[in-house]
């Protein structure tokens, strides 16, 4: 079932490439094609075209693939061959949250390492107005900063550990101290952690801690930050 979904997504991607970027479509699996048509993503006719929904889905897959390429290339410094393989897996499993996080981390890139353009996402539209980053390593924050854990970068050992401590993506935290150790507060408990651990935890920083209406809050947050950055 899962493989089928991936295969279908891959075909969708190829159709999109054939329409937008001179990709030559060949050896199309009939059952997959039927499946996509049944799902209302693809229209058959003079060649294959995409429905509105199909176009949206395909753009998303392409976007994820290219963002993944950028991430693997720029941040993790992986080689060409590894990138392609990993990116092909990434595009199927990245959640919306992670997508935004990666895109913001990379500073809303517009082209992939091979020079093809990356279809912009919601965060890029918003992000065009931002200058500063919103994703920080926990180790870069200052006392009083608040935010939400977004993801953890590091080996399996490290991420297992972080998870078992309950530092899950989605947890809100507040930085209390950064010296001599990092002290953070989650819920009603304070934790101390060292710099290495803090550097592995990426946090979406908030400017204030009003609980509801985070969207609005984030916007005012960006606005303020921009002023501050301009000042520097």
């Amino acid at each position, binding site marked *: 079932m899962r493989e089928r979904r991936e295969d279908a997504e891959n075909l969708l991607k190829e159709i999109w490439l054939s329409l937008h970027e001179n990709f030559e479509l060949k050896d199309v699996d009939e059952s997959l094609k039927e499946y996509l048509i049944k799902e209302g993503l693809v229209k058959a006719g003079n060649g294959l075209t995409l429905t509105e929904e199909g176009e949206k889905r395909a753009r998303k897959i392409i976007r994820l693939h290219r963002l993944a390429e950028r991430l693997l290339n720029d941040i993790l410094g992986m080689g060409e061959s590894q990138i392609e393989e990993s990116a092909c897996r990434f595009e199927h499993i990245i959640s919306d949250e992670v997508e935004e996080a990666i895109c913001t981390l990379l500073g809303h890139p517009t082209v992939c390492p091979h020079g093809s353009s990356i279809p912009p996402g919601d965060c890029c539209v918003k992000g065009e107005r931002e200058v500063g980053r919103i994703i920080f390593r926990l180790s870069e924050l200052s006392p009083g900063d608040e935010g939400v854990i977004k993801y953890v970068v590091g080996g399996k050992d490290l991420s297992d550990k972080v998870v078992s401590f309950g530092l899950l993506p989605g947890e809100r935290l507040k930085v209390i*101290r950064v010296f001599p150790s990092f002290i953070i507060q989650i819920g009603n408990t304070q934790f101390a952690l060292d710099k290495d651990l803090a550097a592995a935890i990426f946090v979406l920083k908030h400017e204030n801690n009003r609980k509801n209406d985070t969207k609005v809050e984030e916007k005012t947050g960006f606005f303020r930050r921009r002023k501050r950055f301009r000042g520097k």
Partner: protein
Amino acid sequence: MLVGSPNVGKSLIFHALTGKYATVSNYPGTTVDITRGKIKGADFSLIDTPGMYSFIAITEEEKVARRILFDRPDLVIHVVDAKNIERMLPFTLQLIEASFNVILVLNAMDEAERLGIEIDAESLEAKLGIPVVKTIATQKKGIDRLRELIKTNKFKNPEKEVIKLNSDFEERIEKVSKLIEKEYPISKRMLSILALAGDSDTIEMLRNESNFDEIKRLLETGVKSYEIFKKIQDQANEYLEGIVKRREYERGGLRERITELSINPYFSFPMALLSLYMIYLFAGVLGAQILVDLIETAYEDYINVPLNNFLTAYVENYWLRELIGGEYGVVTLGIRYAVAIIFPIVTTFFIAFSILEDSGYLPRLAALLDTAFKKIGLSGRAVIPLLLGLGCGTMATIVTRTLETRKERVIATLMLAVGIPCSAQLGVMMGIAPDFLALLMWISIISVVMLAVGKAASKTLKGEASLFFIELPPLRVPNLSNVVFKTVTRLEWYFKEVMPIFVLVSVVIWIGRLTKVFDLVVDALAYPSQLIGLPKEAGLILLYGFFRRDYGAAGLFDLAAKGLMSYSQIIVAMVTLTLFVPCVAQFGVMCKERGLKTGLAIFFIAISIAFSVGYLTNVLLNFMYR
């Protein structure tokens, strides 16, 4: 069996239910061994386990807890910190999902209420389908209800599904669990969830499955392990919706102010020094000087003198007389050292340590020192065994188990063996130091040696220092009965260990003297002792020192009191004896915990360091005072 995150009050609940005392402290990770006891008023035995956050076991303690859990106890009591229920409920869900018979205990309700948190336990009971009890273990509130629930729920065996993930995950979970054929201590469904989350221990468990290859293929999903745990966390939050209510509460009380100060970098350093000074005042001055004086004088006057008079009058045989009395007899030396010198020092140290521990200050100290400890290959967590080592090195060596990596455990063991003086030694050193300057020299030499040893060890040993992460419990006013109980428990342990050894050492010395073997060893040790400028008698002390580090220290005390040593000789002796091989008990534990090879290696390292530093100190002092 009791399970739960570190520092939620498992041991306190254990005590309330059984009347037995497991080590309780306001410090995460103090239950190293499992403790068993009978529940009062019910014929069940209860097991207390080291803290575990979830099924995924990382540290040694968590592995121990997981192993016991997988022995399928009749009942699992999951103790959570009520104010942090959101973070802890996911493990409850996992326990239920794994088909354990679970009771959920919401402990420390008083602290939660102070923070304005209300929990509707009845609704939670209904939602989860398991009993939920609110308790305040420090005040023994809610314990009776828990006891009743244990009685009525002992043999239930619920098969419930409380974790529902999205269809994508569910599909995979079902596929994996269908492939599992053998029986395991936890449900196949939970096993599959853990395996999908990438838990290597679980995957290892499944290795003997005939379908293992296929299972393994299914597991290669590329999903980060936290995705599943995050889903479980989300679900826990859903369960708690409407059940946990938060009110605004007044901030800025005195307690919070002090709590804040304790992590303020400008105040925390002086605070740390102050707490060490408190230990010194208590154990070093009150214990080692005032109380030792008092008790020892009394012991000499009322026991030694009459006993020796009695022996000379009625016992003809010299060697028999010497076994009991005389200078090295069981009563005059062995029991005297234990009762008159060691007892007051160790007691006062443990009282001070227990107060510090109960207040919740130790994790803060760990956080404070982490950066510095990193330089010698340790993490802040090592502050506990090292500080405890100032009390008793043997006990502390056992506690090094709470450290995460082997490298850390070895370095901490080495530090304890080489440099950290135990309370008895510490007290005696304070007592014999001719003046403050001597004490200062002693402290600086030992510190420099320790730093050098730590640095060298962290360079030589392979592996990395573990990442430092510790929960900072709220500061509490130490509870008097807690402190008393803890001190008594530790003393009990110490005396069970120490008394027989002291008596035994006296007997061994007696045999040694009787057979002249001892003279040979003393002669052998006399050579290096003289080389470092100590009187011949010091060889004897070093030998005693091995049988019990504090025993040797006490011998040094005697020697100094008799005025047999010069100023610089005392300093050299202090340094050498502190650095010298740990006592026989600590050596035994070292070999047991770290393996014979490492134990022996540390043994020889300690001897060589002791004599070479002793030698250098002697040369240096001779140069200074000539």
